[in-house]
């Protein structure tokens, strides 16, 4: 928890133990309570509370006009939500799994992302937030495991956010909902229940666009986001046992991303490792590596290392081998430091 980046709203210091899902639910609850314009929609999110229960009790509390099931049409959900936002509502649309966001790709990339620009700011859909669980770790195979963040990070006009723990989840979600631009909010479902921490019960926001330095270090910078932070932190512990001092950065906001924070760290450590679950080629680590080699060229003592998923669809039986885990990251740390 980097308190420096927290903007508390009100003065509610009380915290309680929540997992990441509960933190999301609490964030949605507060968003709906504090702003009449907030509307939750998506498949099975109403009475049922969503297949992961992130929207539990919201329909009961706020009525089925403000929290409702939609037909199964992701392009419709996002299109509808864009219209709502343009009208002045603050829609929070759920896509049941990030793997199913692609039917909505046109509405997101061609419409939401370009709404304000193309109209000369006559209209905007900035109220829009799209929440969706992403990533592996649940024996989900090809279609319940994908990490599609890079597709969206290549889209000017969108903001992309990915929390890595319960505390961040609530604070970033509240900031995303209230942000004046459309935000894609990826939730690390692998740690929905595993990530537990003290989370303020009240209202707070973590500002978008700012990375969190999770651990200071001197030998190498480790950068990641979402569920991958768990692996990175584990790997850093292994490396520490070898006497390697890792600086760990949690990017949190992927678009726009906090280049200054990363560049500053790499200028100090001289080495950078980036890890994500998505396939290597065209993944977002490429963007960061390209950017950082440009800005920190003279500081770099080894090539920037990428530890990622393989360039295959997400497998089922060989998921464990496929995923960039703490051991792979650890080996890459060692290789980079010994370069």
């Amino acid at each position, binding site marked *: 928890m980097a308190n420096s980046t927290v903007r508390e709203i009100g003065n509610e210091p009380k915290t309680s133990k929540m997992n990441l899902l509960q933190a999301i639910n609490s964030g949605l609850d507060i968003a709906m309570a504090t702003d009449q314009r907030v509307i939750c929609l998506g498949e099975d999110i109403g009475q049922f509370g969503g297949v992961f229960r992130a929207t539990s009790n919201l329909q009961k509390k706020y009525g089925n006009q403000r929290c409702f099931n939609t037909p199964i049409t992701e392009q*419709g959900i996002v*299109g509808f939500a864009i219209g709502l936002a343009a009208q002045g509502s603050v829609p929070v649309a759920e896509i049941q799994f990030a793997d199913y966001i692609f039917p909505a790709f046109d509405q997101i990339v061609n419409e939401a992302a370009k709404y304000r620009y193309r109209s000369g700011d006559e209209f905007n859909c900035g109220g829009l937030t799209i929440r969706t669980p992403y990533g592996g770790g649940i024996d989900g195979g090809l279609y319940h495991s994908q990490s599609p963040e890079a597709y969206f990070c290549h889209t000017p006009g969108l903001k992309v956010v990915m929390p890595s723990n319960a505390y961040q989840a609530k604070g970033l979600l509240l900031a995303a909902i209230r942000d004046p631009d459309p935000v894609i909010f990826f939730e690390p479902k692998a740690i929905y229940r595993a990530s537990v921490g003290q989370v303020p019960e009240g209202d707070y926001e973590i500002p978008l666009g700012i990375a969190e330095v999770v651990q200071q270090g001197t030998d190498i910078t480790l950068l990641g986001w979402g569920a991958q932070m768990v692996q990175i932190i584990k790997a850093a512990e292994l490396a520490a046992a070898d006497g390697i001092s890792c600086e760990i950065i949690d990017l949190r906001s992927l678009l726009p991303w906090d280049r200054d924070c990363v560049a500053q760290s790499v200028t100090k450590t001289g080495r950078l490792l980036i890890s994500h679950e998505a396939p290597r080629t065209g993944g977002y680590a490429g963007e960061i590596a390209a950017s950082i080699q440009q800005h920190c060229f003279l500081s770099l003592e080894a090539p920037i290392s990428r530890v990622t998923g393989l360039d295959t669809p997400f497998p089922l039986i060989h998921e464990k081998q496929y995923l960039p885990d703490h051991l792979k990251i650890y080996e890459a740390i060692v290789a980079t430091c010994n370069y």
Partner: protein
Amino acid sequence: MKIAPNLSPAKKAPKFEDGSSLRIPSLQILNQDGSVIAGATVPDLSRAQATKIYSDMLYIRMLDERMQSAQRQGRLSFYMTCTGEEASVAGTIAAFQPQDMAMAQYREHLVLRYRGFTTAQFMNQLFGNLDDLGKGRQMPVHYGSRELNIMTISSPLATQIPQASGYAYGQKLKGKDACTLCYFGEGAASEGDFHAGLNMAAVLNCPVVFVVRNNGYAISTSCAEQFATDGIAPRGPGYGIKTIRVDGNDILAVYAASVEARRIATQEQRPVLIETMSYRLGAHSTSDDPSGYRSKQEEQIWRDKDPIQRMKNWLIAQCWWTEESDTDLQKSYRTEILAELKLAEQRDKPPLGDLITDVYKSVPTHLLEQFQELETHIAKYPDHYSV
């Protein structure tokens, strides 16, 4: 809780429904000569409103002619006319209120005219100059105006349809006497977004009126290659949407249907689908030449059904209009359009800074950096980048 799904009464042998029970006729009120069809009810329309509608149709006909020439002269990069379909648009928008949101496809500039978009405003958008509300970012004909409640047009087809449903849902929550009017072509109705938008509107009881302009073509693709039925209207009941088909060249039929459609949308809080049967008399756009895919003969049949001529015949029969007022008005429109065209094409282009604003509400650092690099670069080669 209701038992779903209900079984309807039984049949004894496999009989397939082929839609023949669902032939949807077209509402028609006026004959081409301006006379009223025997037994038809003429909708309530004051002389003032009738002449306003007519004048706006005439204005757009003039605008289309002038701008098409301007494009041929190379003064404009691109243009699209709505020639032949004026009544489909004028008759619908006239039945709605200023607080209703209108979302168009691209061939509905009559909507803007009807709500008071000025000639200068049209021209500024077409030339993408300093005064274009859209800051010169989109191709010609992509108008929009917050003040007039007309959503800025976007090129990807049918994307506005689910958006219109969502917009209307928002209006409903606010409890206003307002609805959303959403236009699209019969070609665009093939997109998945059409299905999403109509079904969601029906299930979520959105006060939205969908107007599908069936003009026979989608660029070169005829209706026969677009769908296997006689149009889009037969799909409406399949969503549980109240649906009507009208002769799109008959201003009174279009208007009468639209008045009732708005009433249903706002009072019953449910969607409506109107299909206007008409014909795209001109090319798809200035980039198109229809002679490659349809006959002059076919075009002539429809030219003889000109909706503007039909309304004029009716107005004259009503003694609400004369040939002289027609000629005068045409002339004054032409003059005004030409004058504004000249002014608009001379006006400056939007400032370079507009390249990076409105991507986000505030310009983010990385984009500012990119822009500063660009400025430095341009400063080195000012001639090359001067407009």
